[in-house]
């Protein structure tokens, strides 16, 4: 068990080391997006669409890490199953948040799937 944990931590560490430049780029993109959208007058757009910085993050993430659509869909479906608990416990904020994440994931999967239409 201990070995497995150590191996898992090591693997994660390796993954982070290998993708450090991408992670840094992602964080930088996030800050640039947040900064840009908080500039005077541009922030009006952000007031209207508060989710915009996260959309930028998500696009950058998709471009950098290129996750498979099957993986994204599995995460979305798993999140939906997981959403049972906040719904039962009436933690509406959390349930709404997971709904928004699921929605973005589904939109991504469908967007990727459109290529299949011939």
């Amino acid at each position, binding site marked *: 068990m201990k070995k497995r944990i150590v191996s898992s931590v090591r693997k994660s560490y390796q993954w982070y080391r290998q993708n450090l430049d991408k992670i840094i780029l992602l964080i930088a993109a996030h800050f640039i997006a947040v900064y840009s959208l908080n500039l005077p007058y541009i922030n009006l757009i952000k007031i209207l669409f508060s989710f915009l910085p996260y959309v930028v993050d998500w696009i950058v993430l998709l471009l950098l890490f290129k996750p498979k659509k099957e993986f994204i869909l599995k995460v979305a479906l798993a999140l939906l199953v997981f959403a049972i608990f906040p719904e*039962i416990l009436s933690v509406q904020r959390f349930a709404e948040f997971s709904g928004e994440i699921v929605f973005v994931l589904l939109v991504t999967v469908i967007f990727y799937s459109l290529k299949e239409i011939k």
Partner: protein
Amino acid sequence: MKISKKDILELLILLLLGFTPLLWFHGNEVILGHDAGLPLSPVLHFLDRLHVWTDRYGFGYDQSLFLPGFFIHGIEAIVFFFFHSLQMEQKITFIFWFVLPGITMYYFANKIAKKYDLQFFALPSAIFYMFNHFLLQGWFIAERTKFSLYAALPLLLAFLFDWQDKQRSTSKSAIFIAITFFFLNGEGSLPLFGGILMSLFTFVIFYFLPGFSVKKIFHLIGLIGLTVIASVLLNAYWLFSYLHYISHSFLSEVAQAGGLNGILGWLNYVSADSSLINLLRLQGIPEWYQNPLHPYANTFLGNPILIAISCLIPVLAFLPLLVVKGKVRRFVIFFSFLAIFSIIFAAGSHPPFGTFYILLVNFLPGFIAFRTPFYKFSPAVWFSYALLISFSINYFLERFRIQKVTKYLLLGAFCTGIILYSYPLLTGSFFNYVVGQRSNKVSVPSYVFDFAKWSDATSRSDIRTLVLPRPNIGNNIEAYTWGYWSPSPLTTLLTNAPIVNPTGLLPGQEYALVENVYDMMKNNTPGWKNYAKSLGIQSFLLRNDFAWNLKESPTDSPQDYTSALKSDELTKIKTFGEWDVYDFKDQDTAVRIQSSNSLSYIVGTPKDMDLIAQVPNFNGAEPYYIAGDPKKKNLDILQFADSIYIKPVCIHCNLQNSIINLGAYVPLITRSSRFYKVISKLKKPSAVSISDVAYDSLRNLLEFQKVIDEGKNISITLPSLQEYLVSLNILDKALHNFTQHISQENNSILLDIQNVLRNEKIVLVQKNDQIKDPELLNFYVQIYQKLGSIKVFVDSAVWTTSDEIHKRFFIESPMSESYAMLVRPDDIAQQGQKVSFVLDDTKYQVNPKQVENNLLFLGQYPLKKGIHKLDLEEPAVNLYTGPQDFNVSFSPEGSCFFSDKLTGNKNQIVRVSFQHKKISGMRQFTVLITKDNQQINSLNIQGDQLRSNASMQNYLSDYAFNEDGESFYFAICAGPSADTEEAQTDLELQNLNIRKLYSPDILFYTASNQNSQATIPYIKQSAYNYEFNGNNANNKQKILIFKETYSDNWRLNNKSSDFMVNGFATAWISNNGDKKSIIIYVTQNLVIVGFIVTTVAIMGSIVLVLFLNKK
């Protein structure tokens, strides 16, 4: 498509499930009420809907918008015609609407199933499409319009996919689509097409996805063009008059929905729970969250198993994206896209996409119609889910290596699960939409049907009847002790007789006229009968079973009208159980069309008619024209006036200043911004009106306030203040020019400017403390003085009431005459006293003469044509008659002091003033005006905080309340004491004074009574067609009055109406002599032409389809 044994079996299962509505009816119950609109007399209701003009609403109503209900109401009428039983009719039509979506979905899903060999796909799709929470919510009011488009959706996509796959030609596809929407048209309600539009957009996107070519565009345009042409021709029977109506009334419909602001407010309300997670789980139905007594929502929202199932629904729906491969995958992607796309719209204004929806409502023309997004767009979500979930079911069942029988058993279990998940459909419990309080399943008393039969008889079919008591003024709810509850008047579903109900469909002016009758009848005010007759009201229906004392819709008791109905001029002619019918004794059945050689000219509003009708020589038979009502240009109506009534307008009598939303005038960019210069250059050069100049000065001051609040230095604040001074100087100059010609309109502008200046003064006083720089302070003082001088000038120029005693009026005299002046003091005690007033700078002090109903005659006064000023002195009366100086003790547990019951008037404002001093104790007090001295206790007090201390202080506050004119109490309360040591709290009050801030009733009139009126016998061919012989042998110009709601579409011998009389009716200047005349509502011609076009189009479509098949 060949029909297999399996298809027949599955169709039989669907038909069997279609009998579910039979489980809903018990005893002699029928479905009635709320927004169901299910008629009690289906045949008569259907026949009435073939005409664009109906007598069922108010004083007549253009029902062009109802014509598309031809098929929905036609089916009901046919079934009722054969069975003569309302319950049987509802059972059969409900079965039809219940099974129809299942059949159409089965048609579509079975096509996909056969093409891609999906064994377990079509049946669950159809069952899910029939049994779900969207339809469940719709069934509580049997929304047939919604069901019709819901059923049309699968057919539309089936035809489109067939067309795309070249299985059917463009022309044939267009005809099939057009025929689908010919029968299933959603009663022509554009917003209900939300789901259809979503599906169409998705189809177009997917159509072009594989490749974009000019040929494809032309192909698509061809289909759309042919579909539109075929649809227009097939639906011509309603489309022509519908478009005619919409082109005239769209803006008024929006205004009736509360304008854009009202719609946005409603949008936020209905979208409050349409979160993405709720919509993904097929929940978020507004009623589930807004109605705490919803019959089943709490089970679905609270039961952990049902919550778990709801979260697994989207898992099942989107799983096919992961598991389904092959050619059928294009449908999986299509329906997934459609579901997600529709959810964005169904969420409405709910975050995160709410702003997008609000922008569409604000800026996309016509999108405002989609004001209840959940119900309009979610059919496409349920449609997609039905198919996607069936893909999952099919995948699992085909994948399992088990016996076929077991697979079918599992399919049966899935389908049963789908049905059980919508279990309220099996019991009919969803009709009890407020559990224990309201239900749409009611047993209608037999006397209601007896009344319908009697009122629809030829002898009564043209007698205008007013219902009593009136429904609640705010929500117009009609509720009966036997269970009916709806904003739709019962009589409109029951009979085609002209029965006047105050509903939301009545134009505001007509609503005010009817409210006058109710008010006058309730108080048995003299003149009410005359006034009712002027509206063409000949009869009264007193409903003793009216649930008048409901908490949400309180109204008058039927007994409130007893004294009025006991009048010698009325007779009770018939009783139907709890319903009594009273007619005027001097019943002239032909009052609908009249002629008159003169009219009364009214300067006032319809609301003023209750006062005018009380003047002893008011002639209810003579028509009256209210100045400002619609009239044709160049028509001198005054030439027909033999009497004039002027209701002077009291200016600012309630002493309440309108509230200016200062936030809206704070500039976004101030001179501290780097963009200021750019924005200043882009700014519009100059103000257009003097109001603009005043508001410009306010903007400049608020800019100064903003830079001060931002702590900017003098290099910014001083120029800002200088700009404000410049704008004040411009205003000052403009005011001197403007006040040279004072009219009533100009005075209103001055009042507004006075209010702006008042607000500016408040801002200046508030900001005074923040000015520290001596140079700026010096300039600030100059500005304050300048503002003061302008304010003094405006105060002297404006004609307005400035205190509680001197009420100031404008009198608009339409012609030079000697007018009698009447006044009704607010307090009877003043009736013996002298009345002082100033009329056009001449002072009068008159001993009044009592006339009738507390009206005092103050003499004759000559008034030239034009505007006159009146300043009436009326001492304020203290409504509180107890001792004015007294002490009140409040117990440690908390208690209230209540005045005696004080008499109130409708919509009045009362001013409360007193001096107060705390004698002992620590607690604070609350002052309030309340209708109820029973339910108030010291813990649920909501009112004005009274902070008393040991020294005597003044209190003065105005209270606006009392929409329905009830009596009220003045109260002071103290809550329970937290200090256990405190024995009691004592408060000393002095000079307690409660008085009304109101506009006294004054009337100037001249009445010669040199008039003659005659009713004209006519033949009513239909609600839109009247024939008569002119009663005008000497060919003299006369006024012909037609007592149906005014419309330009009414034509007298092809001549459009000339003006409106009696606040609602249509009138012409006529000199037709004795000739035969016809009054006709011309829009009906469009319907007749439309029906001909439709008939030809149906035959053409059949021929074309047969021809194309042969080819």
